[in-house]
């Protein structure tokens, strides 16, 4: 009974489908016996606005589909991952905040992969870039909400940094760096981004 009501709700939601520009993956429920739409249509759930109407004794809560104008087409619509759809594979960095901000929550955490649709490698790279952007202070409005009236005990030193791989508290000072042939190097950036496009001749310098 519950399954039948779920499938009915899926069918009604399908009738209200918009032929959106970007494709989304079907949820787990929809993969079970759902009538196949013609392959030419790209499906997307429209953005819905919740509208509450109060009559005598009944309250009608309706999700009205907003008419959002279709954005620009991705150059590679057949790919599964959004980064591959827009051909941005090896082209983004921690400085591209406009791109990174589309994959984070309002308190700075990453959105889950099953919602954004990223492939696992790109999800990891975006997570690394988001971490580096947070540590560089490029996302000042995406900090976690502190409880009200919270006063920090000790003022933290405001040090500017960029391309920080490790978290600040986890790193220990290198008291004995060693000789040139066996030096303990300080790591900068992340090796996951080593395949990024470089327009200069110099190679990526990770071990400083």
């Amino acid at each position: 009974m519950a399954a039948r009501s779920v499938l009915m709700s899926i069918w009604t939601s399908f009738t209200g489908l918009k032929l959106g520009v970007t494709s989304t993956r079907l949820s787990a429920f929809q993969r079970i016996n759902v009538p196949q739409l013609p392959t030419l249509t790209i499906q997307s759930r429209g953005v819905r606005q919740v509208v509450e109407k109060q009559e005598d004794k009944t309250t009608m809560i309706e999700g009205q589909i907003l008419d959002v104008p279709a954005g620009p087409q991705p150059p590679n619509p057949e790919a599964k991952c959004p980064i591959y759809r827009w051909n941005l594979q090896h082209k983004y960095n921690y400085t591209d905040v406009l791109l990174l901000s589309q994959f984070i929550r309002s308190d700075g955490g990453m959105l889950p992969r099953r919602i954004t649709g990223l492939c696992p490698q790109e999800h990891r790279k975006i997570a690394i870039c988001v971490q580096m952007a947070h540590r560089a202070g490029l996302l000042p409005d995406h900090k976690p909400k502190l409880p009200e009236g919270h006063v920090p005990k000790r003022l933290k030193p405001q040090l500017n940094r960029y391309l920080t791989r490790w978290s600040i508290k986890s790193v220990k000072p290198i008291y004995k760096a060693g000789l040139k042939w066996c030096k303990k190097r300080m790591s900068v950036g992340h090796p996951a981004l080593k395949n990024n496009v470089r327009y200069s001749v110099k190679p990526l310098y990770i071990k400083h």
Partner: protein
Amino acid sequence: MSSFSRSAQQWATFARSWFLIDARMQPPGKIAVMCSVRLQGKHKPIYHSLDCGDHVVVINTRHIAFSGNKWEQKVYSSHTYPGGFKQVTAAMLHQKDPKAIVKLAVYGMLPKNLARRTMMQRLHLFPDDELPDDIRANLTEELPQPREIPRKLSEYTQEEIDAFPRLWT
């Protein structure tokens, strides 16, 4: 310039100029390279090791930016006397003295000879924007910053944020 008179050309070649560098959000190593080149005089075609360097003024040394985790990992050591060996991380040293990191970086990049001390006397470091008036009167040229400062999300206008396409829905 060929249009100068002889005495003016002579003055323009051999006068000691004053350079200004803003170190805000810049890596101290790159700032130190620029400083050491100009303190030695290696940016001049008339370079000679006997004293043709210029003055360099570095401002905002309190706001330098280290790449990676160097604030916690980089250690500055000082052997003053036996038993007086101190090792301080870059963060602690910067808190104690905001000019020290840039000063040590430039000192290490200058040639290790007796002229190094005179060249260090021609380097002027200031932790913030404030400059004494006599130094401000002497400045001739400002050098461009070595590193491009990335923009924060709050610095983008709403139109730019809207113009960027949504990658997923």
